[in-house]
């Protein structure tokens, strides 16, 4: 990617322009989406069925939601990105991975903007201005690597097999409900096996826990959670790139 940094920047700029052009609220939509979800889950689980007694429940929700939205939208956008640029891939030679990488980067830019706002609100309301915040860049870098790695995988697989994007779309909904976004795992089960599945088999869960630990609780996440994040990010990005490189040569033929 080193030689194609300029191309990557240009593609990110094009994506950003195309996204926000002609929409009145522009970037604000990225804030409205998690806020609407937050409102819905707060109403459902905080007011109608107050099963989880969590302090400042809307903020608890928001920390998980913004991570989930970044993750799921990165994969969704990446999955169709190569086909969306099919005309270009058939006609020009350039490093193909810049395409899924640029759509994930666009999601990252908006995610970071939203996260800064969430962090400010958390610090103000929860008083979580703590050294724990220093861990956040590490968690976010690992999260970006996870999204990029899995984004490369779904992008190149969808170019070969057109069922991948619909399968992903179908999987993301139950995945959302199984992620510890509106609950914390220890509140719903004490079983070791169940906790393992919910907290460790789901690659997004440790990231949600880590971001929530820092912003909502003002605590440094446990070492095993941090280690999981770093390893998951590294494995995803290395594995994703290896698969992409392997399938890349025929892309101009299959898209």
């Amino acid at each position, binding site marked *: 990617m080193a030689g194609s940094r300029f191309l990557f920047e240009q593609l990110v700029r094009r994506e950003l322009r195309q996204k926000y052009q002609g929409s009145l609220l522009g970037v604000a939509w990225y804030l409205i989406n998690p806020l609407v979800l937050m409102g819905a889950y707060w109403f459902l689980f905080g007011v109608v069925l107050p099963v989880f007694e969590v302090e400042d429940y809307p903020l608890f929700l928001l920390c998980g939601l913004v991570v989930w939205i970044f993750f799921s939208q990165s994969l969704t956008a990446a999955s169709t990105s190569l086909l969306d640029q099919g005309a270009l891939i058939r006609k020009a030679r*350039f490093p193909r991975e810049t395409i899924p990488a640029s759509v994930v980067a666009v999601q990252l830019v908006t995610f970071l903007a939203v996260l800064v706002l969430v962090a400010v609100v958390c610090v103000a309301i929860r008083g979580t201005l703590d050294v724990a915040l220093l861990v956040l860049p590490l968690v976010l870098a690992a999260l970006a690597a996870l999204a990029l790695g899995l984004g490369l995988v779904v992008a190149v697989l969808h170019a070969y097999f057109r069922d*991948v994007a619909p399968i992903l779309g179908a999987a993301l909904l139950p995945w959302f409900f199984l992620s510890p976004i509106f609950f914390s795992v220890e509140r719903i089960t004490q079983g070791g096996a169940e906790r393992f599945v919910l907290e460790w088999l789901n690659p997004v869960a440790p990231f949600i826990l880590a971001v929530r630990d820092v912003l909502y609780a003002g605590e440094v996440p446990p070492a095993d959670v941090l280690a999981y994040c770093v390893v998951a990010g590294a494995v995803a990005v290395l594995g994703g790139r290896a698969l992409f490189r392997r399938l890349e040569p025929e892309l*101009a033929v299959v*898209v």
Partner: protein
Amino acid sequence: MRPGELVLEHASRAFAVRADPGRSLKEAVFGRHRGGPPPVQALDDVSFHVAPGETVAIVGRNGAGKTSTLRVLAGIVPLDSGRVEVGGRVVAQLELGAGFGRAFTGRENVYLNAALHGLAKTEVDDRLDSILSFADLGSFADLPVSTYSQGMFLRLGFAIAAHMDPDVLLIDEVLAVGDEAFQRRCEERIASQIEAGATLVLVSHDASLVERTCERVVVLDRGRVLFDGPTAAGLEVYRREALVA
């Protein structure tokens, strides 16, 4: 490999014929797609060598493998077997303005498109004024390309590609799209690049364009080289072929 040199040796490439080039998972898991036409052999043992600075036209009927040959030379499509090697900077003009951002201004698209050609920012900075003046956009340079006429769009696309200082120039019919004045300017620009030492490989159905710009013709037929030699004789073979078909 010298810059501008170009080699195809026993190059073969087949394409599966399907309405949707992608496969479904079902097909991949439960075996190959049954029925339907067999794969098309787009290149069937094609060999030719082009020296730096040579000008070559590839002609042939539709489906002869002309565009596939260019895409192989451009490094967009890999071979099934055989060898392809191209020396130096290759600039392929298979479609003008491919990859333009509709919401980007002309100026911004210069940067994007030049980046797709592999240029760094400073290299684009140096060429920007020259590209914009060649494209002759006037006050439109800072408006989104979605406001451009077809002609302006193509002029900008060609202007960018024409400023990439190629060692090898691969051109596929793109000159057929503009008006006469535009075509003349493009031809002049290409001629000046050839004078500067660039190798040209041109795909075209326009016999007079081929006569004007190329000293050598490769006639393809169903993926095979039917003739490779001087332009006048090559066009003769091509005409005869076209009539037989």
